[in-house]
């Protein structure tokens, strides 16, 4: 068994998790709740083993670094943090339907990592700029933030779907969307998830700044990646202020959760391909 096999399996197990949660949502198959959770936890453990194995393999080759150093590894780690975040939310808020809106993000990430032809899966050595203890702190904190924003976006979609049907007055407890939690609850979880993400994004930006200072002597150089992370930070800062002080909620916050996540994806992915800068090593 090597790490690429384990991570390959993960892609399909997350697909299966997605299907299970979709079935719970669509067919109101509440009995499948526990199996879906158990299966997702198992899939998560398989992926964890895959990541740890890849870490160990890099030491065997003699490179010795955490599996967080190129696009493939970061996408896989993104999927891992999304599932972790989702499982924590399921455990804390005891709502399983959210899985139908959050787990697909992890599956899509894994599918992209596994099947995209433009992505290099090799374990490659670290270039000098990446040889730092800050690598782990910076990448992990950023991705916890990204994953929280991904789940918040899933919750935002959930809110908008339910809200649209409620405003058409088609929802009752018998209908499809009746299985979704009440709008107020979705709104509350969306907000809490964004708050959590905002804290970690802040830590991620700060660890990045400290790292940049120890590598180049400049903690902030308005490199496109830095700038976009700040733009994302502004968007969530606006969202949180609008909620705390102007009482925004519901549809507007749901849209902002989606809009913020678009900015996250651009920061994470778009910048590497569309703009040039210090983070360009992330593009292979």
């Amino acid at each position, binding site marked *: 068994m090597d790490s690429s096999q384990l991570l390959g399996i993960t892609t399909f197990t997350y697909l299966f998790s997605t299907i299970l949660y979709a079935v719970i949502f669509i067919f109101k198959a509440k009995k499948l709740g526990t199996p879906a959770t158990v299966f997702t936890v198992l899939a998560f453990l398989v992926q964890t083993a895959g990541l740890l194995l890849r870490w160990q393999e890099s030491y065997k080759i003699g*490179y010795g670094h955490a599996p967080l150093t190129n696009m493939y590894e970061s996408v896989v780690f993104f999927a891992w943090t999304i599932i972790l975040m989702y499982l924590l939310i399921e455990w804390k808020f005891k709502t399983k339907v959210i899985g139908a809106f959050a787990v697909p993000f992890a599956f899509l990430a894994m599918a992209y990592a596994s099947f995209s032809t433009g992505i290099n899966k090799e374990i*490659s*050595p670290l*270039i*000098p*700029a990446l*040889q*730092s203890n*800050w690598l782990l702190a910076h990448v992990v904190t950023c991705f916890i933030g990204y994953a929280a924003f991904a789940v918040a976006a899933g919750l935002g979609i959930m809110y908008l779907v339910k809200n649209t049907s409620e405003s058409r007055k088609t929802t009752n407890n018998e209908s499809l969307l009746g299985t979704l939690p009440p709008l107020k609850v979705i709104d509350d979880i969306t907000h809490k998830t964004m*708050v*959590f993400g*905002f*804290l970690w994004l*802040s*830590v991620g930006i*700060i660890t990045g*700044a*400290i790292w940049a*200072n*120890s*590598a*180049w*002597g*400049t*903690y*902030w150089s*308005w490199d*496109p990646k830095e*700038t*976009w992370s*700040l*733009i994302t930070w*502004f*968007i969530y*800062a*606006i969202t949180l*202020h*609008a909620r705390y*002080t*102007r009482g925004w909620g519901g549809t507007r916050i749901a849209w902002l959760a989606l809009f913020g996540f678009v900015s996250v994806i651009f920061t994470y992915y778009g*910048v590497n391909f569309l*703009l*040039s800068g210090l983070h360009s090593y992330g593009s292979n």
Partner: protein
Amino acid sequence: MKKKNPVFSFFASVKLALFTLFMLAVTSIIGTVIPQKESFDWYVQRYSESTAKLFEVLSIPDMYNSWWFLGLLGLLSLNLIVCSIDRFPGVWKQIKADNLANDLSRLAKMRLSEKWDLDKTEAECASELTNKLASNGWNSAQRKRDDSLLIFAQKGAMTRTGVYIVHASILVIFIGAIVGELYGFKGSIMLPETKSTTSIFQFGSGSPIDLGFEVRCDRFDIEFYDTGMPKAYRSHLTVLEDSKVILEKNIVVNDPLTYKGITFYQSSYQGYQDFILSVAEKNTDTSESVTLSFQQRANLSNHNNTAIGIINAEMRGQSVSRIKIWFKDEQGPASVFWIRAGDEVTVQRADTEYIIGGKQMYATGLQVAKDPGVWIVYIGCGMMILGLFVAFFMSHRRIWLLLKEEHGSTSILLAGSTNKNKMGFEKTFSSLADVLKSN
């Protein structure tokens, strides 16, 4: 209450904060799409003459330092300051409030409240309840109110300051950045091996900056992985004052050298066509280095009739990987051998042994920075994380107990409130109520 003037209200408003953050987010995009700090001609070529001129007028080529962008940051700072002046006193009043002076009729109307009776005197109840509170981490105070006794306990009063810590942290970071801008510098130097310098060149202007000491590059090496990817760039630097060695360090990317507040970062390199050869004789312990061009030879000055030369060299990309060396002393025929660039070998001659090393000559590219504001920025960052944590995950929780004795029995009213996380506090409140009610 002081009367608020409209200008003050405007600068204290959340509307302004939302507007400023929105403008910062939107305008920041410009600099990620239009390449920054290029020359005027570059923009003319990439866009057009008129566009380039428009950019010039709007300071687009250096937008993050432009008057309007800094103006937005200034507006944000002003907003933060005025907003804090406006709101903080109120928050402080809540923190320092005398919660034992509360209007008693309001207690029963609180969202969280419970009532029960105990067949004990007020004093007995009070000591029992305060003990139970204390063992659950609630330190209480009490005061006689008319014919009843009010007990109050709170947790996390200071957490109300969380938001203001975050706001202050942003200002602290800005102050750190300004200090760095005023009292620091950023520059670079391309320093050939064996050479030293007492000044470096400022970024942008290119004007020399005096270091106040001398820094020498003794040696620069590149290590490669088997794949041919660079593994490490390493410069051996020596700091000298009055020609005396003060400090020596091997620097690599991510591990710079700092002396007197000035830090030298490994950032680039440049390969020369020359070679540096070193010869050390084991017996006499004499050593020396020479700099040679390709296929040149030179006589050594410390060793009689001894000469060394470069016959050949192999390249890997822009760097020399192997060198073929020719070496001859007073005895016997010349030794000819290959060595890996940067390595040393022992060469056996008739009466003695030499350790001979050879490498391509490089200049190391150093970024040089002095930033006395960086610690202020880091303190601001620490404050921000602390403040966000406090603001998001901690709350000010307050509980009151109102005891009233009548006919040997005491009626007890428990009430509680929190400023955040209402659901979490409901659980805390009901389990605390259970503890207080139990015998």
